[in-house]
């Protein structure tokens, strides 16, 4: 994925559970959200964790999720409450 995603784009977090050092929270895998910020490019933490150089760098985004669909109503929040996480491009599928 080389094209940068635009703010406002809808994305799905890849629903996968590979082993290793991964910075995509379990509870967001397979969930749908919206890009709200592009931070720039950063070394890949999944490689850095093993002493590698983390290249090529990856686009990093802040993704917004609504609480209701993330937790399917099983939590303590109001209808408009939201959640964001910072996710590298390799975990984002445009929808």
């Amino acid at each position, binding site marked *: 994925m080389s094209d940068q995603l635009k703010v406002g784009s809808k994305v799905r977090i890849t629903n996968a559970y590979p082993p290793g050092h991964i910075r995509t929270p379990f*509870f967001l895998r397979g969930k749908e959200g919206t890009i709200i910020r592009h931070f*720039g490019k950063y070394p890949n*933490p999944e490689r850095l964790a093993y002493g590698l150089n983390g290249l090529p760098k990856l686009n990093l985004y802040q993704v*917004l999720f609504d609480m209701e669909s993330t937790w399917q109503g099983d*939590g303590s929040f109001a209808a408009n409450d939201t959640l*964001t996480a910072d996710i*590298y491009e390799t975990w984002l599928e445009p929808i």
Partner: protein
Amino acid sequence: MTNTHGSHTGHDHSHADFQPDIKEPKEDWEFLEITLRELLVDKGILSAREIQDEIEAWEKKSPEKGAEIVARAWADEDFKARLLEDANQTIRDFGIEVDVLKMVALENTSDLHHVVVCTLCSCYPRPILGVPPLWYKSKQYRSRVVREPRAVLNEFGTSLTKDTEVRVVDSTADCRYLVIPVRPSGTENMTEQELAKLVTRDSMIGTAQALDPLGLRS
């Protein structure tokens, strides 16, 4: 009763209740840390003093720096705009080195309340807030605030109406967030130094509001 043992003779308490001392290292990671530290010292790469000095330097950083930044943002709209636009450069101009971390400032309003967590570990804007509080690193806070933020905020004494969107910000990667709390009412005539005293650590994480003009919880 002959008493050479003072009040301790009436022994009706158990010594087993004493709070346990710091545990001896037993986990793999604890031995790994000790081994690595001793090797660095033995090989002359770092001295024991340099390691302690670094620990002291980090523990000396405090949320006061963050409070000064927030007070400036309250007092100066241009500064706030720059802080929201490019926090790294603005904080650097303020005289604080934030190294390679990406910094983002988030403004709380009556419509939108940000609260920050790192569900994966304990990512925290240490250069401006110092060492994170223990609860920030606890599994309880990290797992609950993303799922029941309003219950957690209530436990911090922070109750928000349903009109305010609560936005939990999970700091999962290279970015560190600073929350700019809502400027309390009645602070129009206060100086920047006075304002900074109202900006608590928790208000910059988002688990609390800033203090009122008397320095009390509003």
